[in-house]
């Protein structure tokens, strides 16, 4: 009588409705693109109604034009936003504000609840973003070594 078997995508109308009602929605995001911050099946985020304009390092949940739902970080703000996952190296440009469903205001990592206003989190966002070129070189180097010495 009491079960759990609804796919996340099917809940989107409900999520949009509650966000539009000014409420927050907590859920566990799928995928690995926001590692090391968010681990699938372990950590969760609290999504709140988006402000009129996002800021750099905000973490919006949005819908791509192909219908896909994504939670990635804003790294550049202009007329449109540029976003990227913390575990990614390819930037996604041209995100329109109308595509944004909500923005992360808090998250749970393991058993600890964090606000996105915490100094430690703000430092993490900056260090992780600016170290991306180094991380990219490191990952490429490791990949080459693995190919040379399989």
């Amino acid at each position: 009588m009491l079960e759990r078997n609804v796919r996340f995508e099917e809940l989107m109308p409900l999520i949009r409705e509650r966000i539009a009602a000014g409420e927050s929605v907590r859920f566990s995001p799928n995928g690995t693109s926001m590692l090391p911050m968010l681990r699938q099946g372990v950590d969760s985020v609290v999504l709140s109604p988006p402000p009129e304009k996002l800021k750099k390092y905000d973490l919006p949940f949005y819908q791509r034009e192909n219908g896909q739902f994504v939670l990635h970080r804003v790294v550049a703000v202009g007329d449109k936003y540029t976003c990227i996952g913390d575990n990614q190296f390819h930037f996604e440009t041209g995100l329109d504000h109308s595509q944004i469903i909500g923005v992360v205001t808090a998250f749970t990592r393991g058993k600890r609840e964090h606000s996105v206003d915490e100094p430690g989190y703000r430092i993490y966002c900056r260090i992780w973003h600016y170290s991306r070129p180094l991380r990219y070189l490191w990952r490429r180097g490791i990949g080459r070594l693995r190919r040379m010495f399989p």
Partner: protein
Amino acid sequence: MKLKDGFILREVAGEHVVLSVGGEVDLNGMITLNDTGCTLWKRLEQEAELSDLTDALLAEYEVDEPTARAAAERFVEKLKELDLLAGA
């Protein structure tokens, strides 16, 4: 007995989904109900006794009284387990 306040029952993709509302909706704690569960949930939105739940099932499904009562008891036990009943 009666359900606690702060929950909504919605139909999502053919499933009856119960969510906590009021500030924050927790999808990790989302519950889906089958048709029987949905009938009992709706009845428990008002004050009801076990006999009322049994009657609700008898009115809607072709089952005998002992089967309906046993189903209602199981549902109430599950609700207690999940701490969804007011004053339980």
